[in-house]
């Protein structure tokens, strides 16, 4: 039998590395909870004043859940693609580049591993849903698996495209501050985008994370009201899919260039 699966081994390597890096694992699990419970609690009174009967107390925290899932997979996807830069800096990329496998294999391996790790981390957050009053059934879990996979895939492809052009890890901070954080803040994860001033609103319209978070809201906050989804679900899915396809093509092309 031929071990014909370079993709498989690239994915397995990323998993091993992920679960061996305790710090990364911990950050990944704790950061979203900090956002949800600390920022969420702090802002919830401001955003949604508690009525005399105590109603509305958890409303903002519920609103935050889709956004925090979006944030988690954004950071996770970008971070896993940085392993390409890491591999380049520490030489391991060459081990893959001189092997008789196509560049596309390497790209697909990185895409799948990044997607799977983000999916894992995003879905872990659903565990807290019942504790903050978001009711989820099997249907919603299945819908979330699909949507989180799609959004994770597109963000990983985006990260890979960036990583293909980063020559060293120094560039990572710049990317983080000028691309990733703005993407998070202008995505509707923390507040509805409709109240933003027009220039910022335009940015949210080209931000794939806006559509991702919006899709999650469709599933997790189906009730309507002022804190629910803002775009049609079908638009969310189409935008994210097209973005994913374009980014995948661009990163495959970037990797097939010879130095």
């Amino acid at each position, binding site marked *: *039998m*031929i*071990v*014909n*699966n*370079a993709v*498989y*081994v690239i994915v397995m*390597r990323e998993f*091993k*590395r992920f679960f*061996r*890096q305790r710090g990364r694992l911990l950050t990944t699990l704790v950061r979203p909870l900090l956002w949800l419970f600390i920022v969420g609690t702090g802002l919830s009174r401001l955003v949604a004043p508690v009525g005399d009967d105590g109603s509305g107390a958890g409303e903002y925290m519920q609103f935050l859940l889709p956004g925090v899932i979006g944030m988690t997979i954004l950071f996770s996807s970008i971070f896993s693609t940085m392993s390409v830069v890491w591999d*380049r*800096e*520490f*030489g*391991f*990329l*060459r*081990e*893959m*580049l*001189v*092997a*008789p*496998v*196509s560049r596309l294999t390497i790209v697909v391996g990185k895409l799948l591993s990044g997607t799977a790790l983000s999916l894992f981390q995003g879905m872990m957050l659903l565990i807290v849903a019942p504790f903050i009053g978001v009711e989820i059934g099997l249907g919603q879990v299945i819908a979330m698996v699909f949507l989180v996979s799609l959004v994770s895939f597109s963000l990983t492809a985006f990260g890979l495209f960036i990583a293909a052009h980063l*020559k060293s890890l120094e560039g990572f901070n710049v990317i983080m501050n000028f691309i990733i954080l703005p993407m998070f803040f202008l995505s509707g994860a923390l507040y509805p985008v409709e109240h933003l001033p027009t220039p910022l609103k335009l940015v949210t319209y080209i931000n794939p994370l806006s559509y991702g978070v919006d899709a999650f809201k469709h599933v997790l906050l189906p009730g309507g009201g002022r804190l629910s989804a803002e775009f049609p679900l079908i638009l969310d899915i189409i935008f994210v899919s097209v973005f994913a396809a374009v980014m995948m093509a661009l990163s495959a092309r970037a990797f097939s260039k*010879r*130095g």
Partner: protein
Amino acid sequence: MAIIEVRDLVKSYNGLPAVNGVSFSVEEGEIFGFLGPNGAGKTTTINILCTLLASDSGSSMVNGFDSMTEPHGVRSSIGLVFQEMTLDNELTAYENLKFHCYLYKMKRALTAQRIEELLAVVGLSDRKNDLVKKFSGGMKRRLEIARGLLHRPKVLFLDEPTLGLDPQTRRNVWEFIADLRAREGNTVFMTTHYMDEAEACDRIAIIDGGRIIACDTPENLKLSLRGDTISLETEDDAKACLELKEGLGLEPTMIKDGGLTLIVEHGEKEIPRILKGLSVGVRTVNLKRPTLDDVFLHMTGREIREDKNMNRNSRQPFRR
């Protein structure tokens, strides 16, 4: 047909040629050495041959495949040990090798046995489940060599395989390479700036400033000097040089850092004649049978290892 065939290879970085018209060929089963100082263009040449870098012009064929147009064929034919470390530190030795087997689509039934076999050859069997980050430089190097051989490549490329190793480990690695060729019969292409390693190659090309200045067996290269080397340190090298030329009809070479060398047929007879013929004071006289060092010195007027005092361990990170 030769297993490596390189014609007029040129590669420049920002207008400065790193490889400047290199041609050579390597026969199947040879240990072929590229000998040259740092910055001579050795790594650049290897990168072009191995499909990592595009040349500006010229052609290179490995195992009958064109490095530019048939990269897949070339990649299937070669094993590589890079100048800088390319292991995954977060994986164990065994996992690094396993990864390689999958990447090279080896038959699964063969992989476990082959991994064990090579771990034994490089003496790492008892450390196979340790993370690579806990390994010493020498152990990493040995593991990389084992990895480069896993898939039984037709040609093994070794870029300064003993760089940064202590003399003992250097000798082990070197014996291992020679032994290996005897066992597996593959072609070895290696670069080095150690003369003693070059001596052990079947043939070497001396490269300097992106050009090959000589290519032959170590024996022939030494014979080409036709005789013994006399080195002199004098009070006035320029004057001594002139006197040797005009008074005695010899052909001395001035060395940049001071001193003179000359090649003569019978050194022991020549020394008294030289001492008598010089009017300047002579501090030291030295007679040796020729070595590759002398070949390099004679051809370039420089010592090959001008960086003798530099830190051997500084490996530069790879940039594309």
